[in-house]
Every structure is written in C-alpha cells, then in structure tokens.
C-alpha cells in the first residue's frame, strides 16, 4: 500500500481549541509588533506617521531602522521555533534543537572567519555589507554537505546516527571559533563576542530582504510536511509502511531547517533556547499534533523574539543587551521548570 499523504488541507487536522489558540497567538504577535513599533529611542506614534503629522526624522527612523529590525526579529523567531518543532518531530526527541545538527555552529564559524581574518582579503570593500551573511550561509552549506555525505544522502543508519554526526560537527565548529578567538585582536574579539551573543542591530532592508524571502519559502516548504511528521511518531518503519517516504521527509526537514537556521544566524548571530523552548510551550498550550505545533511554534517564536528584541533595545538604553543573553535568561528557567514538571508527573 502506498497511500500518498496529503497535508495541504491544514485546517482539517486541527480542532477548535487549537484554532482558537492559533488565533490568540496571532493576535499577540500583532500586539507585540505594534508595541515594538511604538517603543524605542524615539517614541513614535503610528497614527501620527499614517496621518503624516510626525516629523520626517521619526518617519525615517520607523521605516528604515525600526521596522526592518522588528520584521527580521519576527522571521528569525519564527524560523527558530518552527525548525525546533520539526526537528523534535523528526528526531522524536524533545531535546532536539536547531543547534543540534551543527548548522548554526557552522554559520557562526563562517561569520567568525569573516570578522577575524576577513579584512585581509581585498574583496571586502565591494561586498562589505553582505560579507558576514554570505560567509555564514557558506559555513552552514558546508555543514549541510558534510551531513549529506556522511549520512549517504540522509538515508543511512537512522536518526540517532545523524544526531551523533551533528554533535561531532558542532565540536569542529567550536574548535574553529575558539581558535579564531585566540588569534583575534582586541577589536576583533569585541566584535566577535558581541556578534556571537546575537543582535538585530545590523538590520537594513537591503540585507534582510533576501533573507526574509528565503526564510518564507523554507517555512512554507516545511509546514506542508506536518502530517507526515505526525505519522513518523509511530516509528520509522511503521511510518514507511503507512506511505511516508521517510528519506524524503528527512531530506526536506533537515534541508529547510538548515537553510532557515543558517540564514537566521547569518543575519542575527547565535540565539539559543528559542528553538528548544518554543515548541514545548506550544505543545503545553494545545497538544502535539504537528499541523498545530508547526504553525503555533512559528507564531510563538515570532512573539518571543520580537518581545526579546524590544527588551534588548530598551532595557539599558542607550546600550543594547545582546539578544542571545535575553533568550537564554528567559529560556534556561523555563527549560528547568519543564524538566521539573515532567519529573513530578
């Protein structure tokens, strides 16, 4: 029996309660975006902007500095939440995280290479703005290729093998970053540590637009596999008997996760805990059904990240708190609470 699983009719598989939760999350996302557009160094009233009664400087700040930043934070949050949820589904392991397959470490290594030794190449002046994103994406592509080759096109030896490869790859990238930290000058060291802790400070339309387009396509491509991820929870062999092409599913989830995580890291640095925590919270709210979980995690990731970025911009004004610091500070206690809660049960 080779029954094709259609997952395009997303609404068919989620119940009324889950629909209400998704609507509520969506409403919260819009609220957090509106709040983020208002609060900042300049207090900007959106109605004044619309009615053209705001000063030109405020308008420019909103349109060219604040909005790209908010958009990027939402997309990065959504992509981390979504890839966390789908990787947890694929590995059937609640501790899976986008960092686990080594792609974010690879992207970080690429970016670190540019920050520390990049200035020795003359290509710089022409492509400056794109150098860090491009090298980060190249770094993550190398990792994906390495994963692909070492797992024989994601077909060999099951999912545990892939996790172990991910751990090894992470170790390689950590060594690379440590070495670059060691050889860097004071200036590079500061840039590197601020970059690694994450920031949306460098957001400009020209740099974020290509990233947002790629992330959007990858999100759409991933969301349609939610029904197959549900069936995979029965086990790999059972799922293939029920008509799921497990190899293709692995390929799809890993490649799209790698792409969105690579692009996200390249534009914002390392942001930990979001991919791990968000799916857990969404599961607590409405259940484990992947149709609901993937969409819910994407929206909740967007909310979390836009609020975290608002905190990053405003808590110790005019300086900024690195965004990775905020997400870790929020994520670590939540994670601990989740573990303690499951033990008590």
């Amino acid at each position, binding site marked *: 029996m080779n029954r094709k699983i259609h997952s395009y009719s997303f609404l068919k598989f989620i119940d009324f309660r889950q629909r209400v939760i998704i609507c509520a999350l969506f409403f919260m996302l819009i609220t957090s975006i509106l709040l983020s557009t208002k609060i900042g160094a300049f207090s900007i009233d959106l109605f004044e902007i619309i009615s053209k009664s705001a000063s030109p400087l405020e308008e*420019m700040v909103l349109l060219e500095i604040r909005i790209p930043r908010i958009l990027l934070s939402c997309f990065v949050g959504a992509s981390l939440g979504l890839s966390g949820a789908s990787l947890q589904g694929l590995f059937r392991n609640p501790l899976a995280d986008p960092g686990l397959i080594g792609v974010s470490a690879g992207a970080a290594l690429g970016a670190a290479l540019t920050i520390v030794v990049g200035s020795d190449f003359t290509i710089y002046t022409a492509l400056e703005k794109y150098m*860090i994103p491009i090298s980060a994406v190249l770094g993550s592509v190398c990792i994906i290729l390495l994963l692909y080759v070492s797992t024989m096109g994601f077909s060999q030896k099951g999912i545990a093998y892939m996790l172990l490869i991910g751990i090894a790859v992470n170790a390689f990238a950590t060594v690379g970053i440590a070495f670059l930290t060691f050889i860097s000058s*004071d*200036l590079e060291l500061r840039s590197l540590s*601020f970059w690694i802790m994450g*920031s949306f400070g460098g957001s400009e339309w020209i740099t974020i637009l290509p990233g947002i387009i790629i992330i959007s396509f990858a999100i759409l491509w991933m969301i349609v596999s939610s029904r197959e991820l549900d069936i995979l929870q029965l086990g790999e062999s059972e799922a293939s008997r029920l008509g799921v092409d497990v190899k293709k599913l692995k390929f799809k989830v890993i490649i799209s996760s790698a792409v969105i995580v690579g692009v996200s890291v390249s534009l914002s640095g390392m942001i930990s805990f979001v991919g791990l925590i968000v799916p857990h919270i969404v599961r607590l709210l409405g259940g484990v059904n992947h149709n609901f979980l993937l969409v819910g995690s994407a929206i909740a990731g967007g909310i979390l990240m836009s609020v975290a970025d608002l905190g990053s911009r405003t808590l110790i004004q*005019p300086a*900024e708190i*690195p965004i990775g610091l905020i997400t870790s500070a929020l994520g670590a206690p939540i994670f601990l609470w989740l573990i303690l809660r499951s033990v008590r049960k």
Partner: protein
Amino acid sequence: MENSQRNIFIILCVSLIFSFFFKQAFSSTIEYQSGKNCLKGRDLSKIVVAGGSITEIIYYLGHQSKITAVDRTSRYPIEAKKLPSIGYVRNLSVEGVLSLNPSIVIGENDMGPTTVVEKIISMGIDLRIIPEIQTIEGIYKKINCVSSIFPESKLAQKRVQNLKESIKNLQILRNRSKGNPKKVMVILSIFGSSPIVAGKDTSGNSFIEILNFKNIANNFSGWKAVGIEHITKMNPDVILITKRGSRGYDSSQKLADSQIFKYTNAAKKKVFLYLMEWLC
C-alpha cells in the same frame, strides 16, 4: 550522612574564603612592586615588552635595539611585528617569557594573569609595570617613566622635548574648544552587530576628554553595542571610528551615506575621523 554533607559544605566555604585572601595577598605584592617601576634598569641587554603602547614608546625614544620580544598587541611600528611574540598581554605564559631569558620585562598595567606576573617576579626578573593614567599628563608621565628606565640619550631627550611642545599646542587647541564642546562619539566597529561605542571608563572616552570635547555616550560604562536609533537620537557632531572596524567604509562620504550615521549631524557635515586600532 547529613553530617558529612555539612562538613563538605564547611570545607568548601573555608577554602573559598581562603582563596579570596590568597588572591588579595598576591595583588598586594604587585602594588608593592609598582613603587620602583620607573627606576633605572639594572641590565637592559634583553628587553621583553608586554603591551602595545610600551613598545611604541620605546621605539619613539629610539631604544628599540635591545628589544628581544614583544606581545601580540604590539602592532606599531610595523617593525615591532617582526619580533618574536610572547602571546597576548593579558594571558602571558611564564615559560614563554622565561624561555627568552629576559634581563628586564617592561609591561602595561593590564598585563596578566596575576599568577604569571607573580611568578616572573619570584624568578628574580626585573619586572616593571608602567602606571597608566588616561590624561595628557598621564601620557607624558608614562613616556617619562619608560624613558627613565633607559640610560639618557640625546634622541630620547629631543623626543620628550618635542612631545612637551606638542602637548602645549594641544592645550592651546583645547582652550579654544572650551566654550562650545562638540558632541563626539568613538566607535570601535560597525560590522556584524550594532555599532560598538565607547562609554565611560574607556580609552575612547579619555581620548575625547583629552581633546576637551564631550563624549555623547557617557551614560553607560565600557564598550557597548548601541542601536542605530540611539545613535540617531544622540546625534553626535563628530564621529571617531577605527580604520579596521569600519572596513568597507573607507571614506567620509561612504560613512555619511551609511544607514547607521545617515541622520546625524556628523553625516550632514561629513565629520568622520579615522582612528588607528591600537588607540583603543
């Protein structure tokens, strides 16, 4: 069982307190040494330098011929980079320094770690840690201190004299800007994250104050990332930026056109000055 846990806890607490005092004892030894840091050197045949500014001062005074090795922050003058390296000034290794068999080690006030500094002293090596005060007088004192370690030479005297005159000229310029202090911002780097700006207690801040200008970013301390919005709001009149930290933006025009500075006074008047990295 509970008793043994309590004992472990007490042992841990005692060792923590002990280690704290132990560290205090070490740092007080270094303070003690600092009294005689500027005295004439006993033997200057093999000098090891730890700190970019000290290397620069020794070259400025013309005493460079006896330098055997420098640390990794000694990037200027370029010839200094060809000398053997003892590693990073804040993370030196005892063996690395001792293997060069130095007759004297001259270091920056932030050389470390403390245990390594202590070890070098205990091995009987003449170690000098040059005090640092980040004012014009401080610069003069620092150069004088290094100069007094070496035997007097005509070139060094001439250079110190030149420096005195430059400082005098600088004072005249400073007095001119007294009435209307410009709002200045020192930026370390602009790539990757938000720009990294000099707050209070940084060399960048001292540099601005030496020029009698006002550091617009004086409401936080240390080097911090500052969002583009806040830079726009602070609206600096002059922006000092490191050459290496602004790669890709190699002219005032490019900096003025960049999203980061576009709406500031500095961009309108194109007042961007490049700093050399080793100043920070």
